[in-house]
């Protein structure tokens, strides 16, 4: 695939560059292409599907996006099946192998489609925390032994992303180079948590003026979590993240 063979219509796309639909893998992409072409998985080897599949990879390449190996393996499979079909004398081709490749691919697509539909059905159910709610049971704030969900680093980073996104939405663009020592942010966090009070994660950044402060505060928080001086937890799964002082005297790890 050289650049010259790229269909010009993709280059004309202009505005779509950064709104690439995210496919969850080659099977997902193939299902999408089949749906657009109003074909079903049994027709996955139709030329239109192979061509559009390759065009999509080409586009990823032009955008300098990494193409996962799985996509390339699938491309090779599609081309192999196609090449067998194109041989002038069918008896020269290993039609048995081509048929088998195609059967396998169709079977995988059907199977995958089945779980995709199951996932859609699950997503359409009344979700706890979105559509239905329960009583909190025993009061988690009062009872130190009540179950809590330790906020993971993923939860924190996700919450951080939300904070930064909100900032990006409201602050004017402009680059200011500032050095905010992380160490300076640590006492600020600790004083906010003084006297056993808990603070919601986002409240920590409520009065931060720019990204550098937000990031420095976040780094400081991570440091405090690492030192086990602060605990991050959720009362309900996927709920807001709360921060509180940990009893550093008995929970501090020996090796810091």
């Amino acid at each position: 695939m050289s650049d010259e063979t790229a269909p010009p219509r993709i280059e004309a796309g202009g505005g779509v560059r950064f709104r690439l639909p995210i496919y969850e893998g080659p099977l997902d992409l193939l299902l999408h292409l089949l749906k657009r072409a109003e074909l079903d998985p049994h027709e996955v080897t139709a030329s239109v599907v192979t061509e559009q599949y390759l065009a999509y990879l080409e586009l990823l390449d032009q955008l300098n996006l990494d193409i996962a190996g799985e996509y390339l393996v699938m491309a090779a499979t599609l081309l192999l099946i196609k090449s067998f079909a194109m041989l002038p004398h069918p008896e020269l081709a290993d039609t048995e192998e081509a048929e088998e490749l195609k059967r396998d691919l169709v079977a995988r697509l059907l199977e995958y489609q089945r779980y995709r539909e199951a996932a859609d059905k699950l997503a359409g159910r009344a979700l706890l925390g979105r559509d239905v709610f329960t009583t909190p049971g025993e009061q988690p704030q009062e009872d130190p032994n009540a179950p809590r969900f330790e906020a993971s680093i993923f939860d924190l980073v996700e919450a951080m992303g939300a904070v930064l996104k909100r900032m990006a939405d409201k602050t004017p663009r402009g680059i200011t180079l500032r050095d905010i020592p992380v160490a300076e942010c640590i006492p600020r966090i600790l004083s906010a948590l003084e006297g056993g009070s808990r603070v919601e994660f986002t409240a920590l950044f409520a009065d931060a003026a720019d990204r550098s402060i937000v990031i420095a505060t976040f780094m400081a928080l991570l440091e405090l979590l690492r030192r086990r001086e602060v605990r991050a937890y959720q009362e309900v799964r996927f709920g807001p993240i709360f921060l509180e002082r940990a009893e550093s005297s008995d929970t501090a790890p020996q090796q810091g």
Partner: protein
Amino acid sequence: MEESHLKSILESLLFAAGEPVTAAKLADAIGDVPRATVAKALAAMATDYAGSNRGVVIEEVGGGYQMRTRKDYAAYVRKLLAARPPRLSRQLLETAAIIAYRQPITRPEIEQLRGVDSGGVLETLLEKRLIKIAGRKEAPGRPIIYSTTQEFLELFGLKDLESLPDLSEFKEIERAVEQVNTPPIESVETHPEDVEDVEAVAAADPPPAKDDSESS
């Protein structure tokens, strides 16, 4: 004990518990009422609540009974609690579905079904406690096997794994599709000009990456 009295007690227990509670555990708390009587009363209550215009319902979730707000009022509750709904990406749902239906299942098996590396999404599912490591498979390399959790059932409001949406429906669809399509596939192969037509139409189509409101 009078039935109405029993139901009142059960109502208070379910309200206070919050989480799903089994009939056995409720019977234990009450003490002198047989489990079967409790189960019967619970089933009757579930029907009563569902049929009335109460703001809460009693549902069978994850092996027990649970009091939950009625779905119709989700918007009000969300606003009051300033609740952020769970974020479930497509790949997360897809992987959770595969594990739910095929458990216990190993990572290579999941990746074979999805066609992509699934390490990251498995990590997230574990973090969200929707799946758990159920042990190791007695196979070369003894790979880790995954299964869904009680939290998974609670999140999706499922009584048990048997109440997952039926996959056999898809089998029927597949069979129907197969019957419909066997002849057309042959005709495409015997008449190459059909293929040309399809390609011509496709060329007029926007490229696959063009935003067509499906960008998720």
